[in-house]
């Protein structure tokens, strides 16, 4: 069992854990607003160009989007389980579960990359290769610009999450955590749930609403 002392500015390990979790929540609040700006722009332009956005939405790859949603939800469940085990000091179990979650995150990115590749081929990448013509071409370009920004920023967050979970998995395997000290696992878990929740908003906006209009 490693001897872990709080850093000098904290009185106890409990306080240190509490502060870390609180800090993560505030960080996530800023993240909500960060994504909020893009969602706001999306909402505005969906109102301005309803047909164009519906048309663009029908070009999205719903199968990949849905499979990816399932993958992320599963990984979130796995992470929750890992945090649960971490509270009980089961280091090896934590390591395995976090490893699985990191793997699921990687599969998500792989599928997302394949989706981008298809969009490139179909000429749906604004500014670089955009080949749509017709009355809604401009609105579609806007849709795809916001799509690439939102999923791109989300993908960046996924990448960081994978790195975090892999690191935590290695540390857990080596026995760095115990039932008394597992804060890093907990805040990694919080972060990953956030990444998952953002996707829960992106999925219907990108893949579903355009199809609902018929």
């Amino acid at each position: 069992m490693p001897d872990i002392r709080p850093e000098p500015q904290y009185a106890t390990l409990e306080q240190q854990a509490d502060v870390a979790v609180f800090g993560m929540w505030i960080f996530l609040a800023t993240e909500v607003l960060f994504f909020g700006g893009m969602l706001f722009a999306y909402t505005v332009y969906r109102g301005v160009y309803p047909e164009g956005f519906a048309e663009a939405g029908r070009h999205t790859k719903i199968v990949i989007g849905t499979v990816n949603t399932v993958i992320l939800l599963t990984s979130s469940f796995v992470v929750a389980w890992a945090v649960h085990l971490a509270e009980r000091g089961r280091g090896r179990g934590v390591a395995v579960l976090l490893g699985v979650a990191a793997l699921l995150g990687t599969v998500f990115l792989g599928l997302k990359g394949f989706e981008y590749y298809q969009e490139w081929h179909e000429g749906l990448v604004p500014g670089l290769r955009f080949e749509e013509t017709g009355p809604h071409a401009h609105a579609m370009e806007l849709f795809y610009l916001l799509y690439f920004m939102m999923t791109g920023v989300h993908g960046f967050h996924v990448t960081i999450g994978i790195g975090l979970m892999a690191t935590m998995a290695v540390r857990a395997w080596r026995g760095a955590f115990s039932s008394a000290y597992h804060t890093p696992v907990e805040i990694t878990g919080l972060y990953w749930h956030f990444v998952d929740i953002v996707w829960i908003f992106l999925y219907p906006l990108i893949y579903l609403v355009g199809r609902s209009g018929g």
Partner: protein
Amino acid sequence: MTATSPDRAVTARPAAQPPNYLTEGGSTLRSWLLTHDHKRIAILYALTITVFFFFGGAAAAMIRLNLVTPPGIFAADTYNRLFSIHGIVMVWFFLIPSIPNTLGNFLLPMMIGAKDLAFPRINLLSWYLFVAAGVVALFAVIAGGVDTGWTFYTPFSTMYSNSYVILAISAVFISGFSSILTGLNFIVTVHRLRAPGMTWYRLPIFVWSNYSTAIILVLATPVLAITLALLAVERLLQVGIFDPALGGDPLLFQHLFWFYSHPAVYIMILPGFGVISEVVPCFSRKPIFGYKFVAWASVSFTAVSFLVWAHHMFVAGMSVYAALVFSLLSYIIAVPSAIKVFNWTATLHKGWISFDAPMLYALGFIGLFTTGGLSGLFTANLAFDVHVTDTYFVVAHFHYIMVGGMVSAYFAGLHFWWPKITGRIYHEWWARIAALLIFVGFNLTFFPQFILGYLGMERRYHSYPPEFQFWNILSSAGASILALGYVMPLFYLTWSLYRGQRAGANPWAATGLEWTTPSPPPKHNFDKTPTVTRPPYQYRPEPEPQDAQGHA
């Protein structure tokens, strides 16, 4: 000259000095650049923003020089770059970080009895982000300059301006992350690291203001970040998010931009309120009047500041109903401002007032901020605002608040806590002269601009009709006095580091926790974590301060 240097060495480093944050941990460059101590990081910030302050000030001086004569001495393009440099540097690299990152960083943990901020490494990281942002900004300025002004309005910034716009907004983007991290650190620290007995209603107002500022930083900055990212993407890919020619909407940019940048005004001014609320009670020897009202006024700024952004857009094309609502909300924000001003004046009432340098700066602040605030009521008025939009009236209004208010508050705080930070007393007489020069110079510079604006002189033009010349000459003359006032502290404060008297722990006989620890403080602020048993500002009328060692 050789005769003086041994003396100087003796005064600077006497043997009896107890270990403090400046000596503990070494004084190598490395020990400073890798420090986790909030006090050292505060000093790093202070040095950095001083460079930016004088850089932005030099640009301002050239602007005023140009406006002495109607044709001007610079070409229009050069002039546009000058006012953009001035705005970008002053807003993003001086005003926003000035008090929170220097005085706030230094004092916030000490005032609540903590050993450090909650996340010392993140604190250091935010300084590095700030420096990186500053380097990028200076590079953009030197390489080609930007002519968009500090607001980067589209579609000009995305379609017509030169490509250094991307560099400039990257700089602002990076400095935004620095802000977010600092805000996060402050919020967590105030919530979780208060000493035993330090309840919310025992927090000094400076802590309340910096806490409120931190909330705005954390909630507003991410929106700015994503707005600038959209702007960069539009510029790179030429897809119309904001450009109407490509089907975008420039108003969307303005809404998103001001959703951050109006609250940012309170990011700049709220910490100033905090400083004044410390200085005024101390030099009136009275507890602050209406403590709870002052505290909650700070918090209510955070709420209301998010509801008034569109008053920057009255003439940009809004429905008249939206404009009316934003006009009304803009009036409402005068309420907490007025609460503050009334409480300071009530604190002064029948106080044992002493006119030391920090107090002079603070009184200057109250006068200038009140003028700026009252002119804000004019501009909140829809009909009047339409008349003065984009004139020098608006320039005068925000300079009264930002420069007259915020910079005076920064100087008040710097002088008030200088003995605590450095352990030295500066030359009081020179400090008072500088404070007076700044007050006079400031009014002479900016009051004529109210008149110019009312008469119809447009801002951001490098030339003007000859009938405005009289007021412009007055303004430029005032600017030179102001510049002198701003340069003076550089000399007498530096001098005090070498020759200043020892300050002692509490030269002003003030009551905050930060004054209970030696000056300069030890590495972890307190030898023993203090237990707080009393509310702040327990001042009693005392003509003579208790600590005779420090105070002349």
